[in-house]
């Protein structure tokens, strides 16, 4: 029976991989049927949001860490990319000083030290992933080593994000302040230039999303991923098996941040600017909504949640009143999902599938034999 059980697990994993691959393939095929540059750019943006949703699903759905400031690391990644792309324009756009335009307007005379490494594209790209991960690791160390959990941890993530946003807005001379960093050069790598409105950028985003999705899937299916989920359910139990709980939390929190950072970089490429709104409360709230609607404990569900919600929102955005009404409906939908569908759409599908599976006769009918009937075998209510 043991190999049979194992086979069943294996079969389920295979189905899952096939499902993920099919969705990614569909995403990669879109440009073949779509020539409209504006639509491609719009869809690329949605995919970036999908990636952001995957990152939150990792920390919230799997790790139980509700990050209300997921946009913080997204924004840091986006600024890294913007700084790098801004410096590409420097000799062209500004005078002898070789400074970004907004620095000239703010009477900065010399390129600040933390800008200079961004002349190197490699540094820029690495920083866009490693800096968010590092910031998250630091914050995670501060929070999780101190055993701050649940609601309090969530509030800290929110506060930390707003602090970073305020600092960026305040330090106008070095960050562009409210206006953000605009007027960027185009990202290029290995001779390919990524025009925001070309199919190349779309492919870049789609491929990064595919890689991210499978990487995240691998993490959640590894033993480390299992331990992270166990910590979500019973933190103390895990601790007394000898696992360093804080370390595992820091790990999943940082991985999530790295993915958010990558998404932020891609967002700058397709939007052609970086703005303090990228690390704002509204975007963070949106990510939470996407993931809640799609299903926090399903990477694919979270991603599709982002695509569906932003897609509908984009379709309605033609009209201002509609968009306002949409936000109202979003709020309502969110409350309803939290109330009645805590596992989101993916969770609803999963329980449907399970019901379907149970209705079919089992391949090897085997009487369930308890060693003994349980007179006081009170079923433990499943936590939702």
């Amino acid at each position, binding site marked *: 029976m043991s190999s049979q059980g194992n086979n069943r697990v294996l079969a389920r994993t295979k189905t899952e991989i096939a499902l993920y691959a099919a969705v990614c393939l569909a995403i990669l095929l879109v440009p073949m049927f779509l020539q409209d540059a504006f639509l491609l750019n719009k869809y690329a943006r949605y995919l970036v949001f999908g990636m952001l949703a995957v990152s939150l699903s990792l920390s919230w759905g799997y790790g139980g860490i509700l990050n209300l400031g997921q946009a913080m690391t997204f924004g840091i990644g986006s600024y890294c990319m913007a700084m790098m792309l801004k410096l590409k324009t420097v000799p062209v756009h500004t005078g002898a000083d070789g400074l970004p335009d907004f620095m000239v307007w703010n009477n900065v005379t010399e390129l600040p030290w933390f800008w200079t490494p961004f002349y190197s594209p490699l540094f820029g790209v690495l920083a866009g992933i490693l800096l968010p991960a590092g910031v998250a690791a630091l914050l995670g160390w501060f929070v999780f080593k101190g055993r*701050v959990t649940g609601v309090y941890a969530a*509030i800290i993530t929110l506060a930390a994000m707003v602090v970073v946003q*305020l600092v960026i807005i*305040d330090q106008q001379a070095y960050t562009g302040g409210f206006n953000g960093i605009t007027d960027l050069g185009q990202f290029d790598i290995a001779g390919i230039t990524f025009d925001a409105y070309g199919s190349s950028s779309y492919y870049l985003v789609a491929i990064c999303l595919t890689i991210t999705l499978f990487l995240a899937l691998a993490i959640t299916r590894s033993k480390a991923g299992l331990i992270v989920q166990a910590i979500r359910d019973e933190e103390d139990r895990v601790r007394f098996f000898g696992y360093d709980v804080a370390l595992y939390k820091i790990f999943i929190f940082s991985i999530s941040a790295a993915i958010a950072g990558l998404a932020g970089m891609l967002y700058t490429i397709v939007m052609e600017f970086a703005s303090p709104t990228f690390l704002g409360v509204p975007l963070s709230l949106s990510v939470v909504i996407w993931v809640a609607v799609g299903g926090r404990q399903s990477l694919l569900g979270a991603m599709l949640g982002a695509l569906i919600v932003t897609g509908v929102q984009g379709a309605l955005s033609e009209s201002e*009143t509609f968009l306002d009404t949409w936000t109202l409906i979003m*709020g309502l939908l969110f409350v309803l999902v939290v*109330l009645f569908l805590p596992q989101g759409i993916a969770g609803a599908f999963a329980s449907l599938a399970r019901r379907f599976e149970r209705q079919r006769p089992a391949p090897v009918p085997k009487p369930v034999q308890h060693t003994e009937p349980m007179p006081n075998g009170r079923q433990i209510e499943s936590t939702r």
Partner: protein
Amino acid sequence: MEIFVSQIMTGLSIGSILLLVALGLAIIYGVTGVINLAHGEFVMLGAYAAWFLQTQFGLGLLASLVPIFLLLALFGWLIEALVIRHLYDRPLDTILATWGIGVMAQQAIRLTAGGELRYVQMPESLSQSVNILGATDSAYRLFILFLSLGLFALTWGIYRYTSFGLKLRAITQNRAVASSFGINAGRIYRSTFAYGAGMAGLAGALVSPLKSVSPEMGTTYVVDAFMVVVLGGTQSLMGTLASSGILGELSGYLAFYSNDTIAKALVLLAIVVLIRFRPQGLFTARLRA
């Protein structure tokens, strides 16, 4: 001397507004354990109610205070009955649900009253200024100061000396035991939520003549109020009073010596550090670990 007094008065004024806003949040959190992220929107709704009553019915601010309290209390009662009630065993989800409610409230106001700034007239009788030890202060700000202290005293009295307050304290100590003695925890929670929402509405109405009224005004208030609650300790009304005073003076001082953005960032950093090291608040003794 003048500058010193006026500095203190500014701090007290900020502190009294903080107290008004935080009181409702503190009660709700202390009793039900729900962090109400829609609290700022309750404040905003109170401000809009004041604006609406004034422009549509010509009702003065002071006359509209009681109706606004009742209106928001009803709103809070409904929110508890429809949403919060189902989420007491899922604390993280209450944050999400109240956040969603906040978004809806903001958007509903934007759609009906418009996104532009609105202004509420100060009561005629309180629009002059008063001289205190050489410094001048507006009578209205003094009025808010005394009213907020009065409301605090009222709340404290209810908590301390009424049978409702006794039940409240019992439930806060141990809900299961209190319920087994026949205390209807559900009803107490709902009343608490309604009272907290009503207080938020009052706060909104009272600050409306001082600040411009907009759909987004709630966000800053919820952060400040949360800071007060965290600093004061979640189980202590006196802590709320003390921390309102401290934070009021502190932000008055910070705003005087540095710019607003950095002051805000510092306040948030303080929240983070405080939660990390003293999640039970500054004024609460540590009980059994």
